[in-house]
């Protein structure tokens, strides 16, 4: 599955960039119960209790920052598993700034497998979009100081 979108926030580009690549900062943007452990600047891991519809459970995940061009773009790969399911995400983001607004263009290729892909296939797209929107709304609130 491929997802992409644009997110605009009234904050400096460098601030937005560092926020989105710092687990300690973006952690509150994830609504689902979760833990994050920072191994080093480019490697994180943790758990999250998430799911699709009634198929919910605990997943373990790990993330590697594959590319980092400060304040401009980054690429991150995330692998997770749990509940007889697995997921792999390759996410790209690019940050630009104009007129006091920073714009984040993001795209993610997601591969799901197992129960969540089988039973929840029809709901995955909608659920993923909903969670992504929630994440960026939370990020906007924090970054804009609301």
């Amino acid at each position, binding site marked *: 599955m491929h997802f992409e979108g644009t997110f605009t926030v009234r904050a400096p580009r460098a601030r937005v960039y560092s926020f989105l690549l710092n687990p300690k900062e973006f952690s509150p943007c994830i609504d689902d119960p979760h833990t994050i452990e920072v191994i080093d600047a480019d490697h994180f891991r943790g758990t999250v209790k998430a799911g699709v519809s009634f198929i919910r459970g605990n997943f373990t995940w790990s993330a590697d920052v594959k590319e980092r061009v400060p304040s401009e773009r980054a690429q991150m790969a995330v692998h997770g*598993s749990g509940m007889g399911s697995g997921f792999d995400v390759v996410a790209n983001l690019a940050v630009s700034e104009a007129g006091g607004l920073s714009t984040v263009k993001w795209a993610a290729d997601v*591969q799901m497998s*197992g*129960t969540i*892909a*089988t039973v929840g*296939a029809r709901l995955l797209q909608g659920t993923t979009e909903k969670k992504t929107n929630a994440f960026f709304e939370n990020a906007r609130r924090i970054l804009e100081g609301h």
Partner: protein
Amino acid sequence: MTVHGGIGQAIKRKEDARFVRGKGNYVDDVKLPGMLYLDIVRSPYAHARIRSINIEKAMKVPGVLAVVTGKDLAMANLAWMPTLMSDKQMVLPTDRVMYQAQEVAGVVAESRYAAADGVAAVEVDYDPLPVVVDPKKALEPDAPILRPDRKEQTNRIWHWEVGDREGTDKALKSSDVVVRENLYIPRILVSSIETCGCVASFDAMGKLTLWMTTQAPHAIRTVFAMVTGLPEQKIRIISPDLGGGFGGKVPVYPGYVLAVVAALKTGQPVKWIEDRSENLQADSFARDYHITAEIGATKDGKLTALRVKTIADHGYTDAAANPSKFPAGLFHIITGSYPFQKAHVEVDGVYTNKPPGGIAYRCSFRVTEAAFTIERMVDILAHKLGMDPAEFRMKNFIPSGAFPFKSVLGWTYDSGNYPAALRKAMDLIGYDALRKEQAEKRKQGELMGIGISSFTEIVGAGPSHTFDILGLKMFDSCEVRIHPTGKAIARFGTKSQGQGHETTYAQILAEELGLSSEDISVEEGDTDTAPYGLGTYASRSTPTAGAAAAIAARKIRDKGQKIAAHLLEVGPGDLEWKDHKFQVKGVPDKAKTMQEVAFAAYTNLPPGMEMGLEAVDYYDPPNMTYPFGSYICAVDIDKETGEVHIRRFVAVDDCGTIINPMIVDGQIHGGLTMGLAPALLEEIQYDENGNIQGGSFMDYLLPTAVETPKWETAKTTTPSPHHPLGAKGVGESATVGAPAAIVNAVVDALAHLGVTHIDIPMTPWKVWNILHQKGVA
């Protein structure tokens, strides 16, 4: 004089007295002291290398007693087991998973809940590998080899062909009209109400009792003995009441073996019951045939030749339950009801990253695929020629006087009268009036279609000279004992899954022995008590075990005649079996009933005669039987939604002598519904990563009473000349015949738009898209 419950009587099913009161005894009803529960870790990936399996956390889950992995099994040489087609399949993988939902480890615990928690705690580290879901891509040169364990480094499992290749080529080239079509018969699942499961228990003497959901308990016991090394007399398999089988309970699934291993490992009984999603995602599948067919005719509408090429997607192992000689089953019944002079059929079995496929879902070994293909192609050709499909069939049927008829692909049809069945169906549905109505509706822009399917089945395997499974010859058996009071018990090598054997067999014996069917108990499914047999599938029970019942009864009659002669003080040759009694010829008042004879068998025998009154017969049929039928379906299509509405469906079946008309009707009603299902609803699909799409009943659509039309059934009767009762078997006919009738009707409704074929399932979305493309919707 008729006996109560004899042949031809529509008596109520004996077994329903317990089923309708919820008193059936299924595997999940078995509860033993100290019984443990097995749950299974399954692969989320369709193809992956297993880097490691960590069971530490699982073993700490309260109630979890053991975790079994492939490495454990490998130490006992049990990681792999043979399939019924002499391929091999994993019980548990040691290094690589081959399809999503494949068994990876077994967790044994004190409760089902603890076992499920244990499953969630097993940590498996996978390294995903390239996935092959399309069998055509699997045959491409650069496709990854899915089974490197085989000597043949290709994803082609086997190539099989039959018929005259060159002759068929020539005949098609010289035909006035040839049509060619690609047909896909999708992967579907039997979806029995009861999923698979077992309870394994070893006694103090090391004897294994395995209550399991199996359609073939005796053959499975032999396979278990061969796989595990346990002596066969130390294995008792009990197949209790089954909530449907339809072919899906013929294979040996890893869960069965794991439960036995777990019982051995823990020293306690172990139960395994798969849940619905496991059943849908991991059990053996049916169909999945990619067919290209060409059929030719003269310009005046006489069929000339048939050529069929097929790719059969078998998943990661060939676990089909086909007779050994026929890797594509009895697909070469594909010439159907027509006397082709030339035909050639090729099938390639192919590995993909899917669960094992190829089971005979309410279908005698690929007969559904064959009947669908020929009945679709005949219809397409009739339309191409501008002939009415009924007229075209009538013109081309095997003449009723041509039986026994040897088909060009090698089968000898026992009996048939195809024009009579079609004529009866046409009369019942009012065919001519429907065609007139269709013409009127078409003028008004309405979409109405009429579809015909005049199918021929082939069922009742053996004969043993041609049919075996893993070397076990295909016969079946009956053992009858009449007690002193004239009541009887009969045991069989088959196993009912809802077919009503307890009633049907009792009726056969009642007729042959002059007893009431109420006085005859029928037992199946216990390998310690029943005679050896190959089980129930492929509509084989009445053709084989039903025949064995008749022959065993006649053996009893032979002895009974001597006892009756002794009682009547006449010679045995002075007696005849008439009106269900031993009568002195020409003196009907001087007679003895079987009850009287039975009492004498234990109390007053002729000198020198062995006590008792019992017989056993292992029946090896001389030929298959060939039930047939003609179905006509009338549909209306909603132009706005693409929804297909079946207005009427007339099914005329001919299964030879009918034992119980009500049971036969029930079989046909169920079979028609199971034929409707793939035509309109059912399909198991996979995404490019091998994720199954349709792993729950939210996505895998079964017909309910709402979607099921009123079935109108009728019969013709053309007895089999070689069966002792003339019976042919009927369990699968309707499932075999129905899909083509429905598709033919839908295509007929759209034929004027240039539509020649629609792959099943014909969902509203698919039909609407066609209408949209044609500018109708």
